[in-house]
Each structure stands twice: as structure tokens, then as C-alpha cells.
């Protein structure tokens, strides 16, 4: 006679930590051996690394050159400028994260950046008296912004303008506005460098975006002349490496504009090259999104009587761009890493500062030099940002995938 057999808990060792250990580390004799061997190698390697990092490594040279790494030779009395730009950036980020705090991806990224800045703010407050108060302000800005965003979610609507203002104003402030004045005098671009320059070049992704969208639309245009030109531009630019375009731009831009090379600072030339290069890749990403928009969407829009431009801007682009956000974040990562190539036009970005530091007399007196330490330090910083972006990209991919299906 049938009676329901009640569910019983799984026998011990089937669930929980032990089961996990057994399944993942000791599932068979061979696996156990593998675990022990790799474990031993891993532990000894980690111990060696730790011992080296704590006792043998010459971190002092990294520590002593923090300013070079951060802003290179940006005038000391003007250090408040990049810090103000940073503080406003964090303020805006804070407002966005606070206003849209149900967006976990944005919030997660925001707190990550905030934590990173807070680390430096704390260090500055303790060790770097000259920039103590500005760093403190930069450290507090995200919290203020977050608070404001939580209190006034309506601020989110003004963000587009705020960002544009920040970008333009930030450049103006960093560069200086009134020649000869004390506060707003010009800071020559040859003194720009370090992490600040890396970030400045990274913003080239912003102008590359509308350019890329235009190129992508042009590539799908029905008009052969426009289509051909767009395809040629995209394929030629993508066909050669960025470092070559940087080199070519630094040679050719002065010729193309028939001006003295000194009138065109290296940063400007690099910025143009990076923007155009990035736009070509952006165009390909956007094109992927455009292709993903079903034909029926366009037909429905046309049937409703929307014009060609309206169909593109109101129906097709919003869907296409949404679909390619992860790819665009991926491109941000690539560009962030690729800014390290500007050494080829003589710029001293975050990566290239290491060469300057390594050739200082103090560094040369250290046995074997300090390059290893320097490279590890900057690798860590690059990794910190690039990895966080890739995490965000994966989260976005997951959410978009789940949302559209």
C-alpha cells in the first residue's frame, strides 16, 4: 500500500562545507594529490611574495614619488585644481548613485571608487600636509553627493548637463583660464602627466561616442557615398594599431593643419588620435547593436508615421545602445589600458612616470633598481580600475540578458 515517504535530510557529507571540500578538492586520489601539490606550490609562492613585499622590496621609492605618479610635474601650488576636478567628479557620481540607488551596478561601482579615493584621502590627511584639505574635500565629496542624491532624486535629470559642464570646466580649470593670474594661470601641458594625464586621455571615450554612433549609422546608410566613406574610415583605422596612429598623428597633424608643431601640444595630438581610433571601434560596437534591433521595430515605427530620423533616434538607437552597453564598457577597459601607449609621442602618463622615477639617482642606488616595485604598484592600480569595470560589464551583461529575454 502506498504511503508518502517524507523527505529526509541528505546524509552528512553531502551538503555543506565538507561536501564542497570533497567535491572541489578531494573528489579522488588523483585530485587530492593535485590539490596538495598545487596548494604547496601556491603557499610557498605566496609566502615568498609576501616576504619579498614586506622585507626586501624597495617601496620607499614608490612612496616618495607619489606626486610624480599622480600628476607628474603639475605645478605644486596648483595641485588644488586636479583635486577640485576629482571632488566634483565624485560629487556627481555620488548624486547619481544616491538618486538611482536601486541600481546595484552603479552603486557598487560608486562605492568602489569612493573606497579607493578615501584610502588616498586618509593617507593625505596623515602624511601629505600640502594637499591635506583638498584631499579631505575630495574624500567627503562622494558622501555629500550621495546624500544629496538620496534627498533629491530629481537631480538625476540635470546630470547630463552637469557632466558636460564638468568635462569642459574640468579641462579649463586644469589648463588655466587667465594667463598671468595667481589662481587661474596657465599650467603648461608639458607639465601634465601621471595618473591625471591617464584620466584626461581616458575621457576621449566621451567625444568618440557620438562620432562612433554617426559612423555606425553612416555604415548602415543606404547612400553609397556615405556608406563607402564610413566603411573605409572604420576599417582603415581598425586595421592598424593605436600606437601607430598616435605616432602618425603626432607627425601628420601639424602638417595637415599646416602649423608649427609647437602650436599643437602632444596631449592634443594624442587626444585626437585616441578619439578617432576609439570612434572606429565604437562604431563597430554600435553596429552590432543596430543589427540586433529586429526589423519589425523599424517597420512598426514607419507604419506609425515616424520619419527616418525619428525612427532612428527614438526607436532604433535607444534599443541598440542598450544592447551594447557591456561592449562599450569593454571598450572603456581597452582604452583605459591603451592610454599607456602615449609614451610614443613623448607624454609621461601614469605608466611612463615609472621610467622617470627609475632613472632618479635615489632609485639607481638601490641594488637592481626599483623597476619591479614600480611596475607592480602601477599594475595594481591599473588592475584595480580595469577589473572593476569588467565586473560591472559582466553585471550589465547579465541584467540585460535577463531583461530582454
Amino acid at each position, binding site marked *: 500500500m502506498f504511503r508518502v515517504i517524507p523527505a529526509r535530510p541528505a546524509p552528512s557529507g553531502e551538503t555543506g562545507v565538507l561536501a564542497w571540500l570533497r567535491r572541489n578538492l578531494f573528489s579522488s586520489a588523483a585530485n587530492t594529490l593535485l590539490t596538495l601539490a598545487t596548494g604547496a606550490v601556491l603557499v610557498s609562492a605566496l609566502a615568498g611574495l609576501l616576504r619579498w613585499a614586506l622585507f626586501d622590496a624597495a617601496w620607499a621609492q614608490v612612496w616618495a614619488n607619489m606626486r610624480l605618479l599622480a600628476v607628474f610635474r603639475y605645478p605644486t601650488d596648483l595641485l588644488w585644481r586636479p583635486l577640485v576636478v576629482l571632488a566634483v567628479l565624485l560629487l556627481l557620481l555620488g548624486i547619481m548613485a544616491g538618486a538611482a540607488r536601486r541600481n546595484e551596478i552603479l552603486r557598487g561601482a560608486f562605492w568602489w571608487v569612493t573606497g579607493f579615493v578615501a584610502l588616498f584621502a586618509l593617507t593625505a590627511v596623515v602624511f601629505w600636509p600640502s594637499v591635506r584639505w583638498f584631499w579631505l574635500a575630495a574624500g567627503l565629496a562622494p558622501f555629500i553627493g550621495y546624500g544629496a542624491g538620496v534627498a533629491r532624486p530629481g537631480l538625476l535629470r540635470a546630470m547630463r548637463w552637469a557632466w558636460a559642464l564638468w568635462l569642459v570646466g574640468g579641462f579649463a580649470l586644469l589648463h588655466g583660464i587667465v594667463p598671468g593670474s595667481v589662481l587661474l594661470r596657465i599650467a603648461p601641458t608639458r607639465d601634465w602627466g601621471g595618473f591625471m594625464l591617464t584620466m584626461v586621455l581616458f575621457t576621449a571615450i566621451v567625444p568618440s561616442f557620438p562620432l562612433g554612433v554617426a559612423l555606425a549609422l553612416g555604415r548602415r546608410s543606404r547612400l553609397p557615398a556615405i556608406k563607402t566613406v564610413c566603411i573605409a574610415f572604420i576599417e582603415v583605422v581598425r586595421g592598424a594599431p593605436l600606437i601607430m596612429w598616435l605616432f602618425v598623428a603626432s607627425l601628420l597633424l601639424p602638417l595637415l593643419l599646416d602649423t608649427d608643431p609647437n602650436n599643437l601640444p602632444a596631449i592634443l595630438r594624442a587626444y585626437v588620435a585616441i578619439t578617432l581610433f576609439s570612434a572606429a571601434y565604437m562604431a563597430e560596437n554600435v553596429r552590432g547593436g543596430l543589427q540586433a534591433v529586429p526589423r519589425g521595430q523599424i517597420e512598426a515605427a514607419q507604419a506609425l508615421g515616424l520619419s527616418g530620423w525619428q525612427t532612428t533616434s527614438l526607436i532604433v538607437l535607444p534599443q541598440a545602445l542598450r544592447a551594447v552597453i557591456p561592449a562599450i564598457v569593454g571598450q572603456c577597459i581597452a582604452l583605459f589600458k591603451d592610454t599607456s601607449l602615449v*609614451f610614443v609621442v613623448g607624454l609621461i602618463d601614469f605608466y611612463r612616470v615609472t621610467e622617470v622615477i627609475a632613472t632618479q639617482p635615489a632609485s639607481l642606488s638601490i641594488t637592481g633598481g626599483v623597476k619591479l616595485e614600480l611596475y607592480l604598484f602601477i599594475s595594481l592600480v591599473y588592475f584595480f580600475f580595469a577589473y572593476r569595470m569588467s565586473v560591472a560589464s559582466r553585471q550589465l551583461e547579465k541584467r540585460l540578458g535577463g531583461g530582454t529575454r
Partner: protein
Amino acid sequence: MERIPFWRNVKTIGVLAQVVFVMVLLAGVAILFSNVTSALSRANLPADFGWLGSRAGIPIAETPIPYTTNDPYWRALLIGLLNTLRVALVGVVLASVIGVAVGVMRLAPNFLIRTIATIYVELLRNVPLAVQIVFWYTAVLLPSPPRINNPVELPGGVLLSNVGLAFPFLYPGDRFAAWWPWLVTAVLAALVGGIWRARVARAAELPLRVWPVPVALLLGIAAVGYAVAAFGQPEKSALAVDFDVERGRGTVFVDLDGDGRRGAGERAVPFASTVVRVELAELTTSTQNLSESRRMVPSTFRFPLIRDRDVAEVEVGFVDADAAEQAGYRLHFEHFPSRGVVYVDHDGDGAFSRGEEIDPVTGVGYSGVELVMTLRGFERAIVADRDGQIRTPSFRPAGSALAADDGGGDTVGRGVGVFSSFGAAATEAEIEPLRAEVDLRASGPLVLSRVHVPVSSYEGGMRLTVNYLALLFALVIYTSAFIAENVRGGILAVDKGQREAALALGLSSGQVFSLVVFPQALRVMLPPTISQFLNLTKNSSLAPLAAYGELFVIATITANQTGASVPVALLLIVSYLLISMVFALVLNVVNARIKLVER
């Protein structure tokens, strides 16, 4: 029918828009063009390609084809392109191997393996390639390996030092010419055989294996040809070696006039197999305090690399034995007889202990102690290089170091060479003149060239500089992280049911992977992986960071020297576009094939 005004006609608008667009574009191009021409003429810079034929004068360390600084620019640029391909092709193969391994490890059942693979991928993908190249170049490969005159000896005759990696390599020998037609025949036969076999398979509608037939043909004919060429009639030609033992240099050449000296018009012969014998000779060196691999190595002496099989008898002593005994100097060998330290036996135990190589008074090592190595019966098989050159250590006549020392000179090193070559100063009759003989040996179609270190560079074998290695390592490791992700994605894309079906048929887990899962994953991962191959090739343009002379580096130097920035830029763009197009072609072929099989 009402006529449509042209500004409302969809067709006209399109044409009009294009006309306007093209006109604006042309105007822009025209302005830029006139700007460039006027700027170029004002600065008096070349705008044509005439400079390609003039002397380049660019020193290039690695030249896959013969090159001197007297060669023209086009040849230098060609070498740059070849060097690009050299690093790219090897890099693509290695990156694939590592990428597949790491990608599979990412899915391993063992948590530790999985974690290590994940860390590998995330770490390497998220650090700029530029940083990775300089890391390998200036932080690992330049400072870490030992210096060239005492390289690490790895199994199989592989040598590693701060100059690079060198390993034995096969070169075309004397009778390569006799083998050559066989090789051509083998390749042709393999082609014909492959096509025939594929035809048969198609005709029979059977999925026959095609590859064993062409491979068997290729190897079979090549092997028979090798045997025939090796045992056939030796080629009669009057080769001779012009060898100067004191400089340690010689040239193998065709001795037309039979005088044993290389005269004008007498062609050097590459890759000849020789044996160099020196009956009695000596080498000198002195100790130094060096920093190496981020540590100090005091009181170190280093002779050129001499192995047991090179000599019948070898002995190392102090040039000034009396002074050494007074100071209490002793020798401790880390690698007899080439490398060791000079120490003073402070603790009196008769053996070397750590710290005894440092002078307690000064706190540093004993530097400048002169040592002499006496060799009897030196004999070494040397294969001449591409230019017919052979090199040995710069031997001195036995006893000359002592003589020079007695002569009161404190310059032992190069001084001796000067003494004996002028044949003037030797005060004692003890100095025996150097006697060297060089035998030429017959070799087969291929000759195995081993690596040796005569003075401070590798000779023989295949040599890879640290510059090449650093760029290669960085490119391979960076790209392998991306390929690993493609592999992982490909494997995950294979339906779970495939695995289960294969297991249910009784296949072992290894067979399931290699016969069922991997072939299917390959289709998913191949297209993105090919674009990674292209990325690797394009990324090789970061070579200036490792001072490796590939296309971009040579082109930048050329542009700087000639000022021909526009032509050089055009050359670069066209070269990279060509490379990209080749990859695009491969990608299309692969995509087509994948589609074909899937249908």
C-alpha cells in the same frame, strides 16, 4: 500626375545629400592636402619614396636575412616586417597552446586549479600590455638571468643569460643542395596525394581520413631523399678556413687560389662544420664585485664558458701566486672551471663558507684579483654561422700572463694580447706560441649547430635576444588570457546533453572531451580567437618598449632620420592593413568551413 518638387522627392534627396557630402569631403581633403604639401615644401621634407634606396645606417640586432648598416632603407624596413612576423607567428602558436590550457583549467573540477586559472586570466587581462612588456624586459629578463659569460645551462644544450636564450638548431649543410629537389618533390607529392585522397573520400561518400596519405608521402620522400643526399657523392669544392687563433675568429670560404687565406672575391661559406683544436693555451680574467639578479655577488670571477668535453685538462690559478698566498686567497668554484669566487679562509675549516668572500676590513669583496686558466687539448666542434664566421675564446699563449705580470704591468687583461701579437716584450722563453688547427668536416643535408659562448655573445645554434623574448613573453601571456576566455566560452557553449550522450555510450571522460566537446567548442571559439591572433600581431608594435627591431620601430627611426613622415606613415598604414586583410581572409575561410560542416 502631379510633379513632385525635388526637395520632397526621396530619391533626389538621397542623391543630393550624397553630392553635398562628397563635395564637403573633397573640399576638406583638398584643404588638408594643400596644407600638407605647403608644409612639406616649406620644411623641405621628402614627400616621395626616393629615400627608400639610400643607406639606412640603422643598427638592427636581429636580422632574419643578411643585413648591414650599409644596406638601404627598404631592406631595413623589410627586416622590420620579417621581425614582426617572427614574433607574431611564434606568439600565435604559443598563445594558443597556453590559452587552451588555461581555458580548460578555468573549468577544472579542482577548486585550486580553477582559482589559479581565474587569477591568471583576470590579472593579465586587466593590466596594460605596455606595463607587461617593460615588466618582462626591464624587471625580469634584463636583471635576473646571469651574465652572458656564465649562462644557465638547461637540458638539451639550451643556454639562458641576460643576452637571451640560445638552443641547438639545424641548418642547411654541405649537401643541402642535393636534398633540395627531394624536398620540393615531397611537397608536391603530398599535395597531389592529399587531393587524390580527398577525391576518393568524396567519391566513396565516406568520411575517410585524408591527412595520413599526404603526411606519409611528405615524410617518406623527404627521408629517402635525405638518405640519398647524405650518402651520395660528396661535392668537391676547395673549402678552407682562415683562422686567427689570437683573435679567436675565422672564416670558412671557397679557396679559389689555394693559398689558405681569404682573398678578395673568395666567397664565404655558411654553416660549414669544423673542429677547432688548440694544444696549449690560457685565458685570463680578474675578480669583480657585481650586482646581479637584485643582489651583490662579490669577489666573482668568470671565464668564458668551458665545458668538460671541450678540454683534456684544465687548471685555474692566480697570476701572481706569491701575492695570493700572502693575502691568503683561495678559489671556490661554483661551476668548474668557468665561475667561482675568491675567498679567504677566515674560519680555518679549509673550505668555503658564506661570507668569506667579503673582506672584513673594507666590507666589500676582493676585486681585481687576476686569475689564469691553462687549457690543454682544447677541442670544440663549431658550425660556422650564416656569414661563414667561426669564433673561439681569445686564447693567449701559455705563460704569457705570468710574463706580463713579471713585466711589471698591472694591466693583464688586454695587455697580453698586445705583447704577444707584437712579439716584442716577452722576457722569458716560457711563452709557447699558440698552435691551432681547424679541420673541416663533411656534413649531411642538415647540420646541427650547437651553442657556445666564445667571449661575450652566443655563437652557433638559434639565438633569441632578451628583447625578442620579452616582447614574445608579454604578447603570449597577455593574449593567452583572452584566448583562455574564448576557450572557456566555447566549451560552456557546448550543450550538456552532448557530454551525457557521450558518457552514456561508454566513452571515458578524456575521450568525451577530445572527441565530442572540444571539436564543437572549437567552432565557437575559433572566430574570436583568430581576431585575438590579429590583435597579437598588431600589438607587436609595442616593440619599442623592449627595444626589438620590428616594423614599427624601424619605421619610426626611418621617419626621424629621413623626415619623410608622410611616406613612412603611408607605408605603415598599408603594411598593417595588409596584415589585417590576411587575417580577415583566414577568418572568412574558417567561418565558411564551419558553416559548411554544420550546414
